[in-house]
């Protein structure tokens, strides 16, 4: 490695909490060479973002750092704050996670870029405008000149992130700090942005400090990797060695919890994650799953021609000017003990499908049968019966528990409200349920804020199980969790399926998790199922273009399999249609037993 452009040694940052200084990161040391991409990876609370903020000295008055941060031969920590202004934006550019909020919504895109150029590079207005167009071209925004006068709301998430990158590049920085720049984006858009960052790095001769929680992204982009755990650097090495031969037990534990797309080839059934001991780095042997699917008899959940549309109204008379076709002619079945995954990108209607099934959202047409009972025609009392059979687990475990209710009460509530159990019986049941999801019964008296994210999701599962449901709709239930916690919760869901014969409708955007947990998979795009079939068939022999595109976009947590792949530059289209739009009747082609693919309307 040539002499490093950024060299951090002994960096410790403390925060003032209740009048006391507490260290959040301790004795961090690493270097970034010229034109090198260094990834800092860790789970939430590992201090990776604090490290980036410390480098930029953006932490404010209740934080202090010591150690050395040498950037191009200058110690940033001993620099007066005024002089940091010349470093920030000028020589170090930064991009943040949330593209929706890191642009000012009331300023035109062009003005936001020229402002930086005129401030930092002293260009006049005309030169700045020309430069802004060049920058937008550089980040591959089509017809850049025309888009200068548009506001951020006219740009999609991926396009906004491109604008943010253009602003970061405005002063030709030597180092780009990217703090989870693709976490909020869909997987196909994420692939585009990662590709863009790689290309720009070569064109601009930059170094990149890439902060992420996603091992797949790390494998995809970085030359060297720093692994952080609770404020300490546990391992620094080349990315190949981190993935191939990690020294530290934590790194190994982290990697074993990362699902890898394609790792399930030849496996007929879902597979538990190996749980690695954080101390020894030894993986416990994985217990194979039993065959839980009950193939004879009626399916537990049967969805036929489900349609859910939301009217878009305008004007004083609230006239319907168009409709969001969130779910369009969707049909599938789930059997007892079976997991069907609905997978797709944001806005594809997978969550609306789940909500329509248990009537949290009213469907427009179609029939849903749960255990032989029609959900759409159910009366209010009938619906109570049905909801006992089908329960839902939500995405955000911090949001889906009432913060003012003890968790014991929260789990007992459905039983008591439905008159299924008296207080004493309910208490025993709560204890049993808590045990079942791997928590201790003494925790029943605590409030949700006393639990971590993974524990809260276990509580939500316990609550869903309280009514002895036959089918559970899990809407992105593990997406908000750290990888190691995610692996544990998925193992728990597989255990429960074996014990109770539950049917799962597993809704997720994460292809790798879906591959791990499902018996069958349905791929959704713009409200429609484009491909459905047994997991092995869909993943090993994808037929629809969109399924292939989706799989190609998933970053693989293995740097040796880094692909030179074709990234499509498509945007995700909107399911908004005019009021008089009649959707065409889709036809499906059967590839093999139960594996159906939508016939492309244009091709047919």
């Amino acid at each position: 490695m040539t002499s490093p452009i950024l060299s951090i040694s002994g960096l410790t940052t403390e925060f003032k909490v209740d009048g006391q200084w507490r260290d959040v990161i301790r004795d961090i040391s690493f270097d970034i060479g010229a034109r090198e991409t260094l990834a800092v990876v860790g789970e939430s609370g590992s201090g990776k973002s604090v490290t980036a903020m410390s480098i930029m000295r953006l932490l404010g008055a209740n934080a202090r750092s010591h150690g050395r941060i040498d950037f191009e031969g200058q110690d940033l920590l001993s620099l007066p704050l005024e002089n940091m202004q010349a470093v920030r934006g000028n020589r170090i550019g930064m991009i943040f996670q949330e593209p929706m909020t890191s642009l000012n919504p009331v300023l035109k895109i062009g003005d936001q870029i020229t402002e930086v150029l005129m401030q930092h590079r002293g260009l006049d207005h005309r030169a700045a405008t020309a430069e802004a167009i060049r920058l937008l071209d550089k980040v591959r925004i089509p017809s850049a000149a025309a888009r200068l006068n548009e506001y951020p709301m006219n740009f999609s998430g991926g396009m906004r992130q491109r604008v943010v990158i253009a602003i970061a590049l405005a002063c030709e920085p030597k180092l780009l700090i990217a703090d989870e720049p693709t976490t909020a984006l869909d997987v196909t858009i994420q692939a585009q942005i990662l590709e863009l960052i790689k290309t720009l790095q070569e064109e601009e001769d930059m170094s990149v400090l890439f902060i992420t929680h996603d091992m797949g992204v790390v494998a995809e982009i970085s030359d060297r990797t720093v692994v952080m755990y609770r404020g300490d650097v546990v391992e620094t090495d080349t990315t190949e060695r981190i993935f191939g031969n990690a020294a530290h037990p934590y790194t190994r534990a982290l990697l074993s919890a990362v699902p890898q797309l394609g790792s399930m080839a030849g496996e007929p059934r879902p597979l538990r994650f190996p749980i690695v001991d954080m101390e020894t780095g030894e993986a416990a042997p994985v217990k194979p799953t039993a065959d839980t699917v009950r193939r004879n008899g009626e399916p537990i959940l049967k969805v036929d021609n489900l349609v859910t549309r939301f009217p878009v109204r305008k004007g004083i008379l609230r006239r319907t000017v168009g409709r969001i076709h969130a779910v369009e002619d969707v049909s599938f079945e789930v059997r007892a003990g079976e997991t069907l995954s609905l997978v797709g990108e944001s806005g594809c209607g997978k969550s609306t499908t789940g909500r329509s099934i248990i009537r949290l959202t009213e469907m427009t047409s179609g029939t849903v049968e749960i255990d032989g009972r029609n959900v759409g025609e159910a009366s209010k009392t009938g619906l109570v019966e049905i909801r006992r059979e089908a329960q839902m687990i939500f995405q955000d475990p911090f949001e889906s528990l009432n913060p003012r209710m003890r968790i014991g009460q929260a789990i007992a509530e459905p039983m008591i409200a439905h008159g299924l159990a008296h207080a004493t019986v309910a208490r025993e049941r709560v204890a049993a349920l808590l045990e079942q999801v791997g928590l201790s019964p003494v925790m029943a008296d605590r409030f949700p804020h006393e639990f971590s994210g993974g524990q809260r999701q276990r509580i939500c599962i316990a609550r869903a199980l309280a009514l002895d449901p036959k089918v559970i709709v899990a809407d992105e239930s593990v997406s908000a969790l750290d990888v190691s916690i995610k692996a544990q919760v998925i193992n728990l869901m597989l255990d429960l399926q074996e014990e109770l014969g539950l049917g799962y409708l597993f809704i997720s955007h994460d292809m790798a998790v879906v591959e791990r947990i499902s018996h069958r998979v349905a791929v959704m795009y713009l409200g429609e199922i484009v491909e459905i079939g047994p997991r092995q068939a869909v993943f090993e022999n994808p037929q629809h273009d969109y399924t292939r595109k989706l799989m190609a976009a998933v970053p693989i947590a293995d740097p040796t399999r880094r692909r030179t792949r074709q990234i499509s530059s498509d945007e995700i289209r909107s399911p908004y249609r005019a009021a008089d739009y009649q959707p065409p009747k889709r036809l499906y082609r059967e590839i093999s037993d139960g594996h159906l693919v939508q016939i492309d309307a244009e091709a047919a």
Partner: protein
Amino acid sequence: MSTRQKDAVSVHTAVPGTSVHASPLARTLRALACDRLALTGIIIVGVLLFAALLAPLIAPQNPYDLAQLDIMDGRLAPGSESMTGTVYLLGTDDQGRDLFSAILYGLRTSIFVGIISAAIALVIGASIGLVSAYAGGRTDAVLMRIVDIQLSFPAILIALIFLAVLGQGVDKIIIALVVTQWAYYARTVRGSALVESKRAYIDAARSMALPDRRIIFRHILPNCLPPLIVVATMRVAYAIMLEATLSFLGIGLPVTEPSLGLLISNGFEYMLSGDYWISVFPGITLLLLIVGINLIGDSLRDILNPRREG
């Protein structure tokens, strides 16, 4: 079941006996006790509340009992002694009424009227706000337009009209105060209920097919309490002030049941002749009460701020 890993559990096991285990109410009270300004407010309000409650025991004289008054003791300065030898700590008014006793009894009336009217307005307003937010659509639109109309008139004007129609009396002024106040509660509760009802735990409650009543009162309402409590404290102070204003104008409480406002009004005409105490001491008492309540309200607002909750 014992084979299931419990490693996730050990990560976040709370230390027993620490504050994390407490209910939200207990945490709020503890935070209040640690806040110096709030403590000052609590002490002021506490002392005044006790004085008002125990007025018949503390007061040297019953100011309502005309037989105990001596017109010859009229307008005595603070600290002066009466014919019979009792000391008038804060002086007397024009009818020879001991001001200290009158203030204690006046405080009783003021606080009673303030708290009762605020409580009734809270129950009515909060229910309307919850229904409005949960029902949505046309119900919501109609209810909120009524609130808009109500809030576009000055409170004092509405109270004046009501009292002109109803006449004087404690019950009448409570009705007038409730009418002028409920809309504030309705608007506050609707706002936070709308936010809460969009959150996933309400979806979770609905997906468990809990009855609407239970969702509204067991799930939404408790989570709307923080802003409601803050508004309620401030509104109690406002109700007391409004009552004082109305009494000062002579249309609130009858002269036989003098509240603080009426006492201030009584002394008003003697202000320029140098007999300041008749108006000033009831005025200071009113000021202390209002400031005390507002100090508590301000601290509650800081403590109950959702961004501070962990």
